[in-house]
């Protein structure tokens, strides 16, 4: 059945709740995995970046 969203789009039926929630749960799990890797990559870089500033040089 065609539906109209807030922007006036005539599109397909909205996502059914069980599958939509499953998608959100899977996406949340993926975000956790992603940010484990991201933090591993960015940690040393962020420290190097902060060391450009005298305040942080004193702190470390």
């Amino acid at each position, binding site marked *: 059945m065609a539906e109209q969203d807030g922007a006036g789009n005539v599109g397909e039926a*909205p996502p059914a709740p069980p599958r*939509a929630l499953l998608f959100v749960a899977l996406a*949340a799990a*993926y975000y956790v995995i992603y940010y484990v890797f*991201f933090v591993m990559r960015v940690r040393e870089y962020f420290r190097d970046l902060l060391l450009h500033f005298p305040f942080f040089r004193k702190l470390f």
Partner: protein
Amino acid sequence: MVAVPGFALLLLVFWSFGDRLMRGLGLRTEGAVERFAFSTVLSLGALTLSTFALAVARQVTWVSCLILALLMAAVSVRELRANLGVLKTGVASTSWKRVLWPGKEWQAWAAWLSGIIVVLGTVQALAPVTGMDTGKFHFAAVKMMVREHGLLTAPDDWYHRTGGYYMVYLFGMALGGEGLARLLSLAASPLALLLAGACSERLRPGTGRSAAAVVALSPLFTGFTGYQYLELSVLLYVTAAFLAFHRYRAEGDRAWAVLAAMLTGFALGVKITAFPVLVFLPPLVLAAVRREGSRAWMLILAGILGFSIPAGFWPVWNWSTTGSFVPGYLHQAVEDSMVQLGPDESRWASQFFVALGSVVTTSEYWIDSAGPFVIAAIGGVLLFRKPAESRLPALLALGAVGFYMFVLVVRLRSYLWVDSHARYLGPCLLGFGAAAAAPFLGWMQSGPKLVRTALIAGLLLPAFPLVALKAGKAAVAAPAAFGIESRSHYLAKKIETFEACEFLNGLPDPDVRVQFLAQRPYYLDRRLAPNDFWQGVRGKDDYLRRLRETGITHVIYEPAAVALPWLKDPDAVFGSAPFVELRRWPWKGHSWVRLYAVQRP
């Protein structure tokens, strides 16, 4: 900063010249944003080919580049006038309060955060060049081209690497120096955002700002905006090609199809590692066959021509001057040596999955990532197979990953261990991915409130660490960008070999020739060792012989820049005659950048 007014003027000329080209082709772009972005990209393409012609004739000078810009302006006077009017109206009607504080609407915040990333990147672009690959390849090669007024048929001390966007840099550097070249590089970032937004807006009205945010709030875009790397230039052409393709599918004007093929060619012409964009060609051909029927062959021929010129001019130049289409890549001798030095390729199957993992998380550096939202949204499109307009771009993004991995497995297996996969796939993941993700997000907004909120959070929350990182980088660059910190003080902090280069640049001897055993030769204005220096060099004796033969007077040594095992210990090689250490500068840890003079016998 002095390059900024010239850059603004050039953008106006490019916009107007692109509009003129569109009028000549009988095509229309609608809305100021789509028209500005698409027309400017067309002009950048035309500029690439024109500058290449000048470079082959070795006529790239300040005067010839100025004439080229004036010619572009002269043929588009009518459009220039009209666009000046659009600009005036646009400035007068802009709500500056809304620009500074977007209010309650989440899409306005998405656009605002995207704008912040571009503004912070602009600060970085105004500071002198420090990027590793910029100083090593992109601007280093272009600086040599400026010195030679174009391209040498028998290059001695520089290398052919890539062509496409180098010609835009070359035009900028010849006309307005490094500052203008940096800004022309920066231009790819906002243009890509505008095109991603324009494309998504056509696919599903109301999703333009979220498409721009999908691109802008990714590590790849955040990291590279303001640096003179090439990935965002590829992204620029991918988004423009997809927009042209969509116009052809929706409206059927054949010129759109040819433009889509041509823009795909420009994307591939930027660098060879952009080859995953080739997945875009089959849908283009199929769309032509479906729409044109038996008359499709004429359009396909026009498309092949349109694709081949921008994609092929640089490889053909390489082949005619060096005998190889892509020196350094896909070159058998190089690959053979990589196999000898490289990993155990019998373990390629497990490495295949490691590589895939890095595509969906991050590759070697944090910036080598398309971000989690685009990957999650492509997964969502596959799970729901909705909305319809997201399916093709999602399949194109997946097809690009599949094609890339296929080429690596069958042709470049050792590259499975070169951990830059997310960077090489980034333009396709973001360009096609944003066109899938934003309509998907728009469709999911009609679902349960929890899902709506989670998806908006998934798009916007990752912006905060990225904005923090970008703000930190911009804060480091800002004093140099705005003239508070001197160029040499800034560069000495950022580039370990900068002071050694300045020392050699200041020597009165005109015959200084340098063996640059370091990373970024961009700031060295002296002749370098010839390209074939290392042929037949197997140890220290061969090395000393080649130094004498090639007239090397100085060596700059930077730790970790040297791959040869016998050169790893500088004291063992350079600790005795004919080398005399002139100076040393601190590197990381307890290591040093060292500058040696080579005494003549």
